[in-house]
Each structure stands twice: as structure tokens, then as C-alpha cells.
């Protein structure tokens, strides 16, 4: 069970080795998220259209280990961009991965870049 969690580790911008071409900007909902498949990983990608910023994190909610975060609602708490899991409304910072309303393990986050209307996610492998 832990194995599936261990698949996901935060990738810092400096450690990016692969920029994975995920999909077109227009494939993603405005002010919402969608899930990207990369190898055997599921990555949730969020489009904060109000500020033209993008975030990515594991799709796996560490609470019950279900692949659902991309379907969660996004927003902010005191300026910190966050996602609320659709299962039990656990919220996570999309900057640090930290669980904002509980003591769950932090989720892994990944860098995102947009070039020519294409969304890329950064991985270290």
C-alpha cells in the first residue's frame, strides 16, 4: 500500500530532467483541473486562470489512497493555492503539498510550464 505513495516524490524545478508534453492548454478546464498520465504515474494538473498560473501534484489523495485529486475543487487559503479532495474535502497546498486542514502526509508537487499553448510537466526521471 505504501508502494503507491512512494511512487510520488516532489520534484523541484532545478531537478527537472524531463519536460513531459501533457496536453493543450485548451484541454484543461478554466480554473479547474484534469489528470495526466505519465508512465505509471497519475498527475493532477490545475489551471488557475485568474492569475494565469499552473500547478501539478500527485493525483493520489494520501488520505484514502484514491486517484481523485484532479477532480477536486481549486481555490486559495490566505493566498496559498490549494486543492480540496472531492472525497472528504482534505485540502492541500499546491505550492508545498502540505495538508492545510489536517495532519496528512504532504503530497508530491511537480513544476509546470506553458510553451506555445502546450502544458509541460517537469519530472526528474
Amino acid at each position, binding site marked *: 500500500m505504501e508502494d503507491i505513495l512512494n511512487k510520488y516524490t516532489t520534484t523541484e524545478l532545478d531537478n527537472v530532467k524531463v519536460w513531459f508534453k501533457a496536453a493543450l492548454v485548451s484541454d484543461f*478546464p478554466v480554473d*479547474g483541473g484534469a489528470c495526466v*498520465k505519465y508512465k505509471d504515474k*497519475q498527475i493532477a494538473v490545475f489551471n488557475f486562470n485568474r492569475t494565469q498560473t499552473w500547478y501539478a501534484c500527485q493525483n493520489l489523495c494520501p488520505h*484514502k489512497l484514491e*486517484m481523485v485529486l484532479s477532480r477536486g475543487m*481549486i*481555490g486559495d487559503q490566505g*493566498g496559498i493555492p490549494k486543492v*480540496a479532495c472531492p472525497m472528504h474535502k482534505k485540502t492541500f497546498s499546491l505550492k508545498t503539498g502540505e495538508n492545510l486542514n489536517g495532519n496528512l502526509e504532504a503530497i508530491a508537487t511537480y513544476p509546470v510550464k506553458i510553451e506555445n499553448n502546450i502544458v509541460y510537466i517537469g519530472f526528474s526521471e
Partner: protein
Amino acid sequence: MKTIIVIGNGMVGYKFCEKFIAKNNQSDFKIIVFGEEPRPAYDRVHLSEFFENQDAKALEMAPKSWYEDNGIELITHTRITDIHRTQKTITSVDEKVYSYDYLVLATGSSAFVPPIKGVEKKGVFVYRTIEDLEGMLAYASQLKKKNPNARAAVLGGGLLGLEAGKAVMDMGLEPHIVEFAPKLMPRQLDSRSSQVLQLKLESIGLNIHLSKATNQILGNDGYITGMEFGEDDVLNVEMLIISAGIRPRDELGRTCDLEMGVRGGIVVNNKMQTSDPNIYAIGEVALYNHMIYGLVAPGYDMADVAANQILGQTESLMSDEIDMSTKLKLIGVDVASFGEPFMPASKGHSIIFENKTQHLYKRINVSLDGKSLLGGILVGDATDYNMLHQIYLNGMAIPEDPAQLILPASEGGASFGDVTDLPDEAQVCSCESVTKGQICSTIENGEATDVTGVISCTKAGTGCGGCKPMVTDLTNATLKALGIEVKEGVCEHFDLSRQDLYKIIQVKGYTTFNEVIDNHGNGGHGCELCKPLVASLMASINADTANKEYAIQDSNDRFLANIQRNGTYSVVPRVPGGEITPDKLIALGKIAKKYDLYTKVTGGVRIDLFGATLQQLPLIWKELISHGFESGHAYGKSLRTVKTCVGSTWCRYGMDESVSFGIELENRYRGIRAPHKIKGGVSGCIRECAEARGKDFGLIAVEGGWNLYLGGNGGATPRHAELFAEQIDNETVIKYLDRYLMFYMRTAKPLQRTAAWQERLEGGLDYLKDVIIEDKLGIVDDLENEMQTLVNKFECEWTQAVNDPEMMKRFNHFVNSEEEDDNLVFVPMRDQKMPEPWK
């Protein structure tokens, strides 16, 4: 640097660490904590919740990382075997030696297992740790495979025993409680309240056996098969949970020759020091004033005193009198006792209110001069507990007729006791020892500006949570006294209430979330509270379906389906009034079979198909729609169903056509989005087979028309709907309902159901009649017109979605692949399937 070793990582041992690191001058100390159990300290008080969700992490007092972050060394799964007082060292089970300057014994207690013959048999458990619970669950699931009607007994009808009884029910076994005394909860309740509790528990399916002394445990092949109380007096059970009291884990004190109590426990003084001044004992292992205190609150106080003493604050002492008041919810039944629950007649008078039909019992004990409250017992309804407890603790004056304290508030009469009357030293949160003064001053100094702030500053309400309503009242009263408007804002992004936002959106005609937050919000992106609210308001006003701006909809609305435990969805087509043709039933069956969906009839007389993946949702709905079905809005904060009995169409008692009228109402209000879900019911006669009085609106056919009931619900706080109008015709019913629902949609708080809204309306039902029947506010025409507009604009949102390729894009698990979620695992169950259980 001095070293404190804490032996025991239970609730009290943890609390010692938490209190200690929060104090000044603690940086010269290092804390090492030993726990015998494999996991860090967890909330044993709420242990029975483990049966509901099997989530051990949710019970944790703090995660492992908390100890690290605070420089505390936590060593779990390690028992300490010896204390060498002269060397000031301890030895662990793996024979490592650690030196200490101060030692804190917080070893707690273990379950007492009475010496009954056969107690070693398999299937006999104690109820103490998560490991015990895991053992029970594994055993119970084996049992149920062999015998789905297996029985399990709990030995002990005290507080913990009844909790264990709940656990047995949750495990799906037939529950039996066996108690030696002639009543349940003998330590907390008198005979009459105990009987009321017993009646209530029996009514929900617990079998209770009193005055039973167990002679031996019967068995076969080493497994328990029953309990024998006397000759020919046998209870056949296949599992037994012993909950017959606790014994302090005092063996370390005994082996290192600390002063011990005659019947166990390590003797401590009011500094929590044992007979060795460098060794402290706290919690259930400590014998203070010749007593072991099995409650969390005194344990926490002991932890605080010990921490202060070690830091040299010698004036911090444990008080002589320890408050043993408790309030808890046992299997959904409120039980509370405070002060002296059983008082001899020589000391005062008792006032008793008892209603066996409603399983209610209230007793208060009043001094002979009638001036002070000495104690009491509440069963069935403990809403008065907080106030009574405060009056008792603070010796506050009581009304001339003390019966007012427990009698239902009479018409127009002000209820006695207001939080603001409490003295500053009144302890509001006894788990965390927080006084009224401390709560109010966090607001007065500006440290906190709302309830969340007060809770994080003071920790009030973070223990058992029982004082939360009082903390909220105090916070609001203090804010009001300071002239600060109590924020009714829906979240950090809006200072406006739902009602204000409703008016603004209606007047300004906004149609997007961005317009609303840009013009009336506090900046930012919004959040999971305000986005769905604004979506719901725009829908209530403009008759929008959830397909419009789907990213701001609640996540169920976004996918027009209810998300289930493994991230798949359920599909519920509308079956108005529960009437369905055989052809449609066959269609449902065929579709369910084709997509391999788990199928169940819902509580709202329709059929639920579970286990659809995101990709399957539109495919399934396309087929359903082609057979004449439409969305049932089972996912929405909107009308669910109007349940009907068969009525005069077939029933020989029916007074009117309940099915026809139910269908008409369901079709009228379908798709209308409200602050919360709405359910209706229509019964053809007073036998009430449709359970209409348990719904937001209910109709019962009587001679000469319909009786209309409003504001009922099931749920966590069941409430019967109130009789609003009698013997009215169909047309009047619709007129009143249009007005009622629209008025509710305009003025309720977010996620407030009609029952809670109606209860908090100033002026109550009479006011509602004034508004809806007498048109006191002059708004009924508007209400009716608004409702009629919504009715006219209805459109099935699933039909919309499956006919629009752009909308269909939403229903893919991946944005860059056609594959399905590979994390889904189903297991078989009773010829169907279910998601693999959560670990």
C-alpha cells in the same frame, strides 16, 4: 541539558509532551518518550470510531513527525522493564539503558480480565488498543462467513462496555451486553435513568442482560461458544469482549519500590510526585487522594502540574476536588452526569423529569435551601449539560423554581442561563482547562477574531469537543460586546452572508463566479466553500444547470454523479413518486448488467447503479435517456425524491391519490437547486406509509383535503415536519409549497436544511404562516413568480451534457489518454461487486 524520560505514550503521556514544550524555559530539557504500542499516541476516547472507518491515523493525537519537529525522541514498540532509582537509569526490553534526571510514569492502565474459568478461549477479547480492535475485526469477519447471524457479548455494562456494544453492532454481529450489577452504567446513573437508557438501547437492537455473574466461558475445541451464569442459564455467543474495568499498569512502580496503593496504583502527592521526588506519575497509573481517575480531563491536569513542577513552578498543584462530570454520546444517545449524581436525601432535593416514550430523563440535585445546584444526570438529551455543569462548577445562583433548568423552555419564556453570566474563572473546556476569561481575552486582545482563531489560540474544544457550542456562543457574545460585527461571511473570500449574496446576484444579474468575486469578494481564487455556493445561488436565480461553469460546482455536480468510495460514481435516474413501468425496470436491469454495476434500491424509492467510471457515465446516461429516463439529481443540493405510498389508486384505506400528486410535485420541483437537498413525501392516509413527516415537505391525505407538514428530515438530527396547514386542496398545496421553498432558498444559510432553517426563524412557525399564508412581507407574488420561472426553465442536465461534444470532454479520467484509472480494484460481494475495502 537535563533529560526527562516519559514512560507511556498514551493520551496523557502525549499531553505531558505537548504541555511541556509549550512552556517557557523548557529549552534546557530533552524529552525521550517510550511507548509500548507500535504507533504513536492516539485518541482512546474515540476508539469506537475505528470501527466506522478503520482509520488509525485519524485517531492520532499527533503524527510521528510532530515529535521530531519538537525535538522529542519518540521510541515506540518498546516496553521499559526496569527502573534503577539509585543510578537514575531505566532499562528497555531490548536491554538498552537510558539515564534520566526526571522520570514521568504515564503507563496508564490495562483492561481488567476477571478470573473466570475459560477466559483464555479463542474469541475472547479485551477492548483497549487498536490492536485489540484489529483482532476483533478479523475474528468477526471469519465468524460472519460461517454464520451471518453470529452473536457477540460484551462483559460489562459500564461506559466502555456500551462503547464496545456499539462496536459489536458496527461489526454486524448480534450484540448482547452482560452486566453484573442490576443496572447499566452503575457508576454514573441512578436506577431510573439507567432504565431509560436501557429502553433506548433495547429499542435500537442491543440485548441487555443485568444481574448476571458469569461462572464460566463455555467452549468447543478451544473456541468460545457461550457464557454460563448458573445452572441452565446460558447465553450462546461466539465472541466475547471483556470490558469489566481497568487496572493501573503499575508494575514498574512496584519493582522499584515506590509507595503503592493497597489495591494498586502508584501513590502521588499534589505535585504528582511519587515517593521518589525525581519520579512523577500521571494519568490512570497515579493514585491521587486514594483514587484512580479514569477520565481524560484530570489526566491532562496532572500532566500540566507535573510539567510545571519539573520546571520549578512549585506553586502549581493538583486541586483537591476533581470534577468527575462526563458527557458523552453512547450509540447515539446523550448521557451526562455531573457533580453528585446520586445524592442522599439528607443533603438536598432532587427534581426529576422523565419521559419514557421519548427515552428522556433529567435529574438535578438542589441544596436543601434551594440555592445551589449539587449535581445531576441527563439521559436522552444533554443539550442543557454545558450550562448546568457551569452553574454547578461556579456555584452560580439558580432560579427560584429550579425545575426551569431542565423543563422544556415554555412559550415566550426566556431560557435560564446565558454564557455571558458566567464568571471569568469558569472552566469552559475541561479537557484543556480553558476558562471563560481566557477565551474572551483572546478576542479582547485581538489575538483571535473568530471561533477558529479562538480554538487555535486556546485549544478549547480540541479534546472531547463537547464545549464547542459554548465556545462559539462566547466568541460571538464577546465580539458583539466589543461592537465588532459577528462575521456572517461565507468564507475568507466573502464577508457577505448567503442571503446578501443572493440579493446581489439577483439585482446585478451576475452570471459568472469571477464577476461576483471581483466585485464583492476579498480577492483570491475563491475556495470549496464559496464557489459551489455562488454556483448554487446563480442556479436558484437563473435556473442554470450544473453544466454552466462546471469548475465552480461541487465536485459531484461537476460530474453530475455521486462520487463513491473508490472514485467511481453512482447513477440514479429519476423515478417520480417511485412509479415505474416494467419496461423501464427491464431497461435499468439491462443497462446495469451491461456495465456491470452494483444495483440497489435506495431509501428514496428509486434504483441506484454503482461503480461507473468517469468514461462510462455519459455512455450509461445516453442509454438511460433513450429509454425515457432523466437525471435524478441524486448528487445535487436540490430536490431528490417525493416518496409516495400507493394511495387510493389501489389501497383500500387510501383517502386520495398520493402517487399522482407525488409525481406532480416531483416533476414540478425537479432540478431546482437549493441551500441543501430537499425531500418530499405524500401519504394517502394517516397510516403514513410514505413517511412524509420525515421529509422537508410532507402531505397526508385526510377527509376534505391534504394536511401539509413542513421542515422535517432524517439525518443526524431527525426531526418531524410541523403541521402547517390542514385540509387544503392540491392547488393550495402547490401555492404554499412554491412560496415556502422559494423563501427557504432566498434566506437560509449555506448547507442549511429546511428543519434547521425553520427552527432558527425568529417567530417560528407562526411567523412562517404570517409570511406564506397571510403575506405579511408582501412578497408571495414574487416568490410564486420566481418559482414558476424555475419550473418553466427546467432542463435535464444529463440530456444537455450527452448532446454536447464539448461537455463530454469532462468525462475522461486522463486528459492525455483514453485509458481508465488503473488504481480501481473491485471484489465480489453477494453476487455483485464492491470496491476493495479501505486499508
